[in-house]
Every structure is written in structure tokens, then in C-alpha cells.
């Protein structure tokens, strides 16, 4: 055990990578599922051990292959990315049991093993982005996760899934290439790719040659924003989420955009803030403006969707607006709100998409007018949907309220009281689109489509209920979410104040 402990950062990425390779050799979907389940359940243990070490003893620096940083690739774990690692791996572990029946229904028998292979590869990429301390290594992981995501989306039954995947491939590749251009410009002026080393050198470089540094900031912002679907760069997201298989949608909605947000926060607060006097650039104002647009416009579009998967996808764009709003506010409470909303939104959106996946499993429908009266037929599933829905609205007592509270307090401290009004308006719009579903699902006669529906098997029901319970739990006990997020925000902001 003591021999393994120092290598935990590498294992966090190597375990799912080996799992993916093994899954590629398997024929039977069930065997691949068992492998994916074992890997998914091992990962939170590793992430938990890392988080515990970091909370007890400060940042961990791991030299990959024994090469000394900044020359070799460094895996650097601090409070912030240990939190993200824990989030991604826990969500993966909780939703994994849901996959077996859902995937068995939606994916051809011969392709199931490949599906799990791609899922594990995607997990590898996401964990890799979160753990690495090297800007170019992050690009490689970004593309590993992106390429496997395109395959996961294209595995959807509908032929429009192919178009959605193709469009995401174009947008995603442009985003990743912008990211590399940004990294290249930084490398040209600082001669380094290690994030910690870049931070140390960037201030001097920016004083001599500010222009390439500002260009790099612009390229990195646009590139990562494409990946995290910041309004108006979100156009790939609704179709991708609507046509991907239920399990893929759940996983991607809960984790993929969150890791991209992590990367943006890391670049802004750990790399650029200490070096560049960003007050001179309207970066914050720009981010806040786009976030407001996302929160209002995307919520508004969500109201008019009849396909519930697409409705939740637009809701995701709006919720990402909340997260980026905190980045724009950039004070202790605002950034805490952003980081805690990474976790809270992941939990809530995973519940909603899984509940919808369970409904699709029983009825084969995700359109609102087909699902009237589904609440009486699938009471436990739809209760979970309602709880998570209240979380999205931000009702006190749910996780969503905590995030919005921190964001609102942060906005007030920054002197931006109109932002509080924007948060409330967006919450009201969420009340409309979630309330519409609740009305149709619970207070109408059962439609013929869902006449024979009943709650899904336990393997699907338990993950839904666990995450619905977590929505309430994280709304009451915030020690593990807001507590750690607050520490992470203090660490990130410590760089420039």
C-alpha cells in the first residue's frame, strides 16, 4: 500500500486508460460493463485519497516518468483540482449502474463493448485535464476526451445523432486548435509549458511584449469557451445532448463541460491573473455579459422546447452561465459560487437526465405531450425529477440554492446588485420550464404512451434516488461542497490580491 500511495496521481489517469484498452478487446457488452463498473468504482477511492492528502498536507507534485518539472510533465494536485477529480469520478461511479440496462436498450449488442471503451477513454481525458500541470498535456487530454465524446454522441439511434456529432467535431476541433494556438503563443514568449513555471515567467514576458500575451489570452478564452459551451458558442450542445444515448448525455452533461470550466478557471486565476493586469482589459465585463445572456436567453429558449432532452440541454447552457458569472465576478464569494455550482449542477443535471433516461427506457418517449400523467405511473423517478428540478430553480433546501446564494452575495460585494436581479429572473424562467414538466407529468390524465409505464429496475432507480438525495443533502450540509470550494477559491484568488 505504501508503495502505491505516492503514485496515486498517475493511477488516477492510468487506471481508466488501461480499462479502456481492455474494454476494446472485449466482445460481450456485459463483460465490458463489469470492467467499466470496477474502474468507475475504483476512481473515487483514488480521488478521495488525493483530496484527503491535499487537505491535510497541501499541493502534491508528481513527476511523470521521474523527469523534473518544468522539463518533464508534472501532475499537480491542489484543493481545486482534487475537488474536480472527486466530482468527476464520483459522478462516474454513481451513474455507472444505470448504464447497463440503458445501454442494452439503446446500443446494438455488437457495439456495447466499444461504447464502454469510449466511455472509459472519455473519463481518462477528463481526469487527465483536471490533474495535469502542463498546458500541452492538457490539450492532448482535451482531444482524448473530445474524440471519444464524438463517438459516444454518434452512437445515438437517431440519424440526427451523426449530424450532431459531426457539428460538435467541427466546433470542438476549432476550440481545441484555438487552445493550442494560445498555448503556442505563451510558449513563444515564456519558453515554458508547465503552468506553475509559466506563472512565474509570464509577468516579465508580458512587461516586455504584452501583445502576444493578450492574444494568447484571447485564443485560450475562445477555445475553452467553445468546449464549455459559453453562450453564444453553445450551438453544438443542444443537438449533441438531445440525440446522444441517455447514458452518454447524463455523463457528458454532468462532467464534460465542468472540466472545461475548470480549465478556464485554472488559466485565468492561476496563470493570467498574477501576470497580467486584467483590470486594464474588459475580460471580466465580457464574461459577465455573456453569462447574463446565457442565463436569460438560454432559459427562455428552454421554455419553448417540446423535446425534454433538448429542454434540459438549453437549461445546461443557462446553468453554465451561472458558473461563468462567478468567474466574471472574481471575488471570494463569487468564485466559491462558481466552483460549488460545478458540483451542484453536475449532481442535479445527472439526476434529471437519468430520470428522463428511465422514462425513455419504459416508454420510448421524451416529448412532453407524450408524457402526461407519467408521474402517477413512475412516482419515484418523477419525484427525483421534481427534487432535482427544484434544485435547478434554486429553491431553498436544495443544492441549487447554495450556489445561487454565494453568487448573489459575491455580486453584491462586487457592487453589482443588478446581477442579483438577473439571477432571480433566470430562476423564474427555470421555474416556468421545470414547472411546465411537473404540471404535465403529475396533474394530467395518463397518455396512452405511458399507460404501461412503471418505475425502472433497481439498477437504474438507485442511482437516480442517490443523486436526488444528494441534491437535498448538499442543500443542507455544505461542508464537503461549499467548504472545499471556498478553500479552492481562496487559494486561486490568493494569486493576485
Amino acid at each position, binding site marked *: 500500500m505504501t508503495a502505491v500511495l505516492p503514485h496515486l496521481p498517475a493511477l488516477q489517469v492510468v487506471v481508466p486508460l488501461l480499462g479502456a484498452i481492455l474494454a476494446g478487446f472485449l466482445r460481450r457488452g456485459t463483460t465490458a460493463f463489469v470492467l467499466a463498473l470496477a474502474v468507475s468504482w475504483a476512481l473515487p477511492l483514488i480521488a478521495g485519497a488525493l483530496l484527503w492528502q491535499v487537505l491535510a498536507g497541501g499541493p502534491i507534485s508528481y513527476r511523470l516518468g521521474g523527469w523534473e518539472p518544468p522539463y518533464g510533465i508534472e501532475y499537480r494536485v491542489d484543493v481545486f483540482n482534487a475537488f474536480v477529480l472527486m466530482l468527476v469520478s464520483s459522478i462516474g461511479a454513481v451513474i455507472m449502474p444505470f448504464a447497463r440496462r440503458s445501454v442494452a436498450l439503446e446500443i446494438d449488442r455488437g457495439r456495447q463493448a466499444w461504447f464502454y471503451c469510449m466511455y472509459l477513454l472519455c473519463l481518462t481525458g477528463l481526469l487527465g485535464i483536471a490533474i495535469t500541470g502542463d498546458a500541452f498535456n492538457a490539450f492532448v487530454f482535451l482531444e482524448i476526451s473530445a474524440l471519444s465524446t464524438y463517438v459516444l454522441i454518434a452512437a445515438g439511434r437517431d440519424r*440526427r445523432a451523426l449530424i450532431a456529432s459531426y457539428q460538435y467535431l467541427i466546433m470542438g476541433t476549432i476550440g*481545441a*486548435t484555438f487552445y493550442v494556438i494560445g498555448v*503556442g503563443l505563451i510558449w513563444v514568449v515564456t519558453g515554458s509549458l508547465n503552468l506553475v513555471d509559466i506563472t512565474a515567467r509570464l509577468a516579465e514576458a508580458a512587461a516586455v511584449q504584452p501583445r502576444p500575451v493578450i492574444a494568447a489570452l484571447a485564443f485560450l478564452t475562445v477555445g475553452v469557451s467553445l468546449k464549455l459551451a459559453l453562450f453564444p458558442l453553445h450551438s453544438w450542445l443542444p443537438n449533441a445532448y438531445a440525440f446522444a444515448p441517455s447514458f452518454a448525455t447524463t455523463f457528458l452533461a454532468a462532467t464534460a463541460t465542468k472540466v472545461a470550466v475548470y480549465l478556464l478557471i485554472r488559466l485565468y486565476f492561476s496563470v493570467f491573473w498574477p501576470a497580467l493586469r486584467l483590470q486594464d482589459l474588459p475580460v471580466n465585463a465580457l464574461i459577465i455579459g455573456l453569462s447574463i445572456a446565457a442565463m436569460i436567453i438560454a432559459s427562455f429558449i428552454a421554455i419553448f422546447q417540446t423535446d425534454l432532452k433538448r429542454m434540459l440541454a438549453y437549461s445546461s447552457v443557462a446553468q453554465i452561465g451561472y458558473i461563468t458569472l462567478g468567474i466574471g465576478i472574481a471575488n471570494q464569494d463569487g468564485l466559491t459560487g462558481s466552483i460549488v455550482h460545478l458540483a451542484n449542477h453536475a449532481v442535479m443535471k445527472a439526476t434529471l437526465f437519468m430520470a428522463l433516461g428511465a422514462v425513455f427506457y419504459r416508454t420510448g418517449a421524451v416529448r412532453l405531450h407524450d408524457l402526461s400523467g407519467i408521474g402517477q405511473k413512475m412516482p419515484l423517478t418523477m419525484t427525483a425529477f421534481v427534487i432535482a428540478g427544484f434544485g435547478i430553480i434554486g429553491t431553498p433546501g436544495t443544492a441549487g440554492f447554495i450556489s445561487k446564494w454565494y453568487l448573489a452575495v459575491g455580486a453584491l460585494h462586487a457592487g453589482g446588485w443588478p446581477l442579483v436581479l438577473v439571477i432571480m429572473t433566470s430562476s423564474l424562467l427555470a421555474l416556468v420550464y421545470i414547472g411546465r414538466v411537473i404540471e404535465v407529468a403529475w396533474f394530467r390524465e395518463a397518455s396512452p404512451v405511458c399507460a404501461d409505464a412503471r418505475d425502472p429496475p433497481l439498477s437504474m432507480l438507485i442511482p437516480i434516488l442517490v443523486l436526488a438525495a444528494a441534491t437535498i443533502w448538499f442543500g443542507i450540509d455544505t461542508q464537503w461542497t461549499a467548504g472545499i470550494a471556498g478553500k479552492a477559491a481562496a487559494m486561486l484568488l490568493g494569486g493576485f490580491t
Partner: protein
Amino acid sequence: MQALQTFAEHYNYVITIFLMVTGLYIVVARGNMVKKLIGLSIFQTSVYLLYIAPGKIVGGTAPILDPAFTVYANPLPHVLILTAIVVGVATLALGLALVVRINECYGTIEEDEIFAKDDEQ
């Protein structure tokens, strides 16, 4: 004269930016899905040049430890771009595979015709 000199001294960047914008323009302006992917490839290729060019030092040798050679070119960008080329090839291959599947399902690879077919449904 000054502008012309700056232009000539940075001609590698001029080529890079020209390729970059060409590629991006093709992605935006063309409706044919294969052409879009080729544009994307050109766009990615321009980045290879962006990395490789600053690594070259005129008169520099390969990085060999020998007292006879003191000026050498940085080998790092070549290694990075090898990785980026692999990523680019993988993206192009996956994209083309998707286009093959799209052609099987829709019978066309023109974007406007595909959207028209989906709207009919």
C-alpha cells in the same frame, strides 16, 4: 519601408496566419462536409507551422552535446507537433468516418440538403 521590413522579418507568421484564416474560412463557408473537414485540417496544419518556425535558429544544429556546436535549435516544438499531428490525423479520420455514415443514412453530404431532409420529417 519599416512596415515592409517587419513584414519580411516575420514572413513565417504571415504564412501561418494566411493558412489559418484560409482553413477557418473553408470551414465556415462550405456546405460540403468533406470540404469542411479539409478546411479544418488546413487550419490545424497552420498551427504546426506556428510552433515549428520559432524553434528554428538560423545556423543552429541539432541539439547534440558536443563542444564544437554551441548554437542549436530547440527540439521541443517538433515533439509537441508530432503529438498534435497524431491528434489531427485522428480527428480527420473520425470526421471522415462520420461523413461516410451520414452519407449512408441521408444519401448526401451537402449540409443544406441534409437539413432539408430532417425538416421534412
